[in-house]
């Protein structure tokens, strides 16, 4: 059953759009999570390498923070705008309503 997202007090049967929105949301959620981890890991590794080269420890945490900032910035750029999760013409969001 679909949640009462509109606050109308009515709970409706899930539609194909609900399922498509759920699939898109799930996919986007995990992609965003992957970006956060990947940003920290990628620049953390680069920072660690620089730290090894210059015999210092600070580039590693600094790299992680920079990577996190890059990830957050990119997530806001890509997913933070209104309509960025609207169904597109291809991929997970596409639903053929008369499929069933």
């Amino acid at each position: 059953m679909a949640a009462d997202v509109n606050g109308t007090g009515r709970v409706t049967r899930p539609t194909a759009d609900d399922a498509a929105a759920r699939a898109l949301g799930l996919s986007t959620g995990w992609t965003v999570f992957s970006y956060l981890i990947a940003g920290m890991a990628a620049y953390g590794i680069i920072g660690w390498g620089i730290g090894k080269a210059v015999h210092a420890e600070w580039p590693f945490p600094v790299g992680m923070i920079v990577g996190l900032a890059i990830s957050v910035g990119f997530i806001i750029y890509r997913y933070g705008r209104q309509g960025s999760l609207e169904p597109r013409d291809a991929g997970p969001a596409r639903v053929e309503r008369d499929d069933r």
Partner: protein
Amino acid sequence: MIGDVRVVADAAGGCHLFGNCGFPAPGLQNFSFKPLFSVGSFHFTKPMLIAVLCTVIVIAFFWAAFRKPKLVPRGVQNLGELGILAVRDQILRPALGRKGDVYLPFLVSLFFYIFLMNLMELIPVFEFPSMSRIGFVVPLAAMVYILYLYLGFKNQGAWGYVSNMWPRGVPWPIYIILIPVELLRFFIIQPFTLGIRLFANMFAGHLLLAIFIAATWYLASFTIGLLFAAGSAVMVLFVFLLELLVDLLQAFIFTTLTATYIASSLEAQH
């Protein structure tokens, strides 16, 4: 579950409340099993037996359901169709549309195999989710990811696929900054998170069940401890029902993400 109590009891050497030996907390010992039999250096263990059994059950169920399909389904065919339609309408078509029906057998097999493997933690005698051993999850995640890459290269071409990985409309200096992030995300983090979520959920769930079962056993006595044992027993029931939901949910999430990965391989998204 009974097995957990036995393992904990063995590990604790019969430790009990007022025994001055502390609570025998479940841990990694609950995930290790003695080999059922060995062939040379290959040891066949209980999680492997469960995996083989689940494979046989899934194959046997769908074979029985659709061996002689009738236009008006009866008996086990009804159940089989219900399962297939649930995966088709809730997982496959929202992600792939009608053209994705070719992947229905793969997604149905994946969903029911994972669900059954997870469910084994709640079935007496088995009492263990094989997916809580990372060795069972990694091949599944690898299989899905190899399919994802293969379909992407096949449908979009090597150059098209690689170029579609990058976001459009971004100034070129940003690309340079994003290259390490995108590469790591695409080849390491994304498949890692796909598998680790399933593994971690099953691992934590099994440990939680084991803790409350062990606590019920540990606290049961003709003292005030009996009240705590009863409370712990209620928690066992609660976690049992929660795990039933988690088992289904994890199978659903893994299969849905697989479907969305396949969808993004078939057609570029920007």
